[in-house]
């Protein structure tokens, strides 16, 4: 366990901006933090980076309660690093920026250059070592900021919307950097994002915040859809890539054509080849594309034209584990579908 939050409240100018009864962030994993603007994502990241103090409640880091006093916070900040949504680079060269964290950790001068070289190579910015930091583009700045965070080999990397306001090429690069940092460097990562597809692609676990509180509703499968017709008391919804599902007409307000559909991953059934099933509504063929474990359950991502996550308990998974690339069917019962 990396972080454990209990009854955490953060009040700012009389307004409660964060109210989390309980939240556990696992160690060694990638956790995404999803929520609309103003949901409290940045505040939570600042608290977890020990840059802000809760109004009440507790945060435990690696099973030790955090005391928000200057000396302890300084020590904790040596282990956790936050990359801002709009990172700012210090005046000077890219090298000087990366050297800063090493300098404050009193790393010998001769050892700094290879570490900096390695970090820049990791983000694909090795040719920019002597470039003026303030002359970099937005995407390059984000990558250098990530390198500056990674060069100090933190236990935890917190990223506030790491791919916001960068082009698709840099988005792809940044996502790969995060994956490598977690996979190769074993750094626990927590990142805030608006992108469900990014959360789905990168994260082992997703935490949803709404109005400063963890949302009860699972955000694993939030899919934009359009209503394209009705058939026998059921509304036909078209998802991306011409995937169709139907919902009872009663669950949809008439007149709205563009909706969001939530598919509760705990209530979706996975049917593997050879398993008997009757002809049913919302039976979608697909392929297993990702399997991730944690917290006693296994998250399996199925590509049915759109990516859909489902959760299996560990015994369920062990009984007949699906394989990456295996053709399967998903059955999405009505009770798994919420339409907004």
């Amino acid at each position: 366990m990396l972080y454990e939050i209990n009854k955490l409240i953060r009040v700012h100018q009389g307004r409660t901006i964060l109210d989390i009864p309980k939240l556990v962030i696992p160690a060694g994993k990638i956790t995404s933090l999803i929520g609309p603007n103003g949901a409290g994502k940045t505040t939570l990241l600042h608290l977890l980076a020990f840059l802000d103090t809760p109004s009440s409640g507790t945060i435990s880091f690696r099973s030790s309660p955090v005391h928000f006093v200057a000396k302890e916070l300084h020590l904790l900040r040596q282990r956790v690093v936050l990359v801002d949504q709009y990172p700012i680079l210090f005046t000077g060269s890219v090298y000087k920026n990366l050297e800063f964290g090493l300098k404050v950790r009193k790393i010998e001068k001769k050892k700094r250059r290879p570490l900096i070289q390695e970090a820049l190579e990791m983000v694909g910015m090795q040719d920019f070592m002597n470039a003026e930091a303030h002359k970099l583009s937005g995407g390059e700045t984000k990558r250098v900021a990530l390198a500056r965070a990674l060069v100090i080999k933190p236990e935890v990397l917190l990223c506030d919307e790491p791919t916001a306001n960068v082009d698709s090429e840099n988005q792809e690069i940044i996502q790969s950097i995060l994956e490598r940092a977690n996979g190769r460097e074993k750094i626990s990562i927590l990142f805030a994002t608006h992108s469900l597809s990014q959360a789905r692609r990168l994260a082992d676990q997703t935490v949803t915040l709404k109005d400063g509180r963890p949302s009860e509703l699972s955000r694993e499968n939030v899919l934009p859809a359009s209503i394209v017709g009705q058939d026998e008391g059921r509304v036909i919804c078209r998802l991306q890539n011409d995937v169709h599902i139907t919902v009872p007409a009663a669950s949809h307000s008439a007149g709205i054509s563009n909706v969001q559909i939530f598919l509760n991953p705990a209530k979706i059934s996975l049917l593997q080849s050879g398993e008997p099933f009757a002809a049913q509504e919302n039976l979608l063929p697909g392929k297993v594309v990702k399997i991730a474990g944690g917290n006693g359950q296994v998250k399996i991502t199925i590509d049915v034209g759109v990516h859909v996550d489902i959760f299996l308990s560990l015994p369920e998974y062990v009984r007949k584990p699906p394989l990456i690339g295996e053709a399967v069917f998903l059955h999405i019962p009505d009770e798994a579908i919420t339409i907004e």
Partner: protein
Amino acid sequence: MDLIIESFKAAILLILARDHELLVIVGCSLKVSGLATVFAAVVGLPLGFLIAFTAFPGKRLTLTCLNTLLALPTVVIGLLVYTLISRRGILGSLDLLYTQKAMIIGQIILIIPVIATMTIAAISRIDKRYRTTAQTLGANSCQVAWVICFEARYGIIAAAIAAFGRVIAEIGISMMLGGNAKGFTRTMTTAMALEYDKGEFILAVALGIILMGLAFAINMIFQLFQGRVGADAV
């Protein structure tokens, strides 16, 4: 008109000839004002930084007081320091009156608010993310402070330059606390006033040219630093 032209010509010749009296006066001015700026910076820069960097009750009132002190007339400071260091003052035993030290003390009081307020403005302009970035990278309080000062360096240097410009051109403190003693406490401004009283315009004009030249150089440097601040902010 002839008087002006003749005075101007004679003044240029005086400067080119490196007139001894002229050099002594200019040297005294530079020494007193230079030292006053250094000592005021030692107090004013950290004071300005602390006020800008920390949140404390009464911060707004402190800022208002500092801004008010910017308008303090030099003769008021002269009078205040005079009451302290004159024979009947509490520091009378130190025998400071009509010395360069007395002038320096007065000028320090004059420019500490200038340096402090300009430092506050320079630090306040620095993006808050510099602080959190330095903190999250593991910097301690001193290292964070250094990062912010480094980013605000042009504004801070501009504060010191502006303060020097203020004291090199002041006359009230120099006259009241220095006494305008020839070869000892006579500065460019006090000498100009004396020469004017005597009707001797040549030395006054020569000193005026040097003072204007210094003021121009200071402003050039000031503009240079201000320009860098503006360019960095873009």
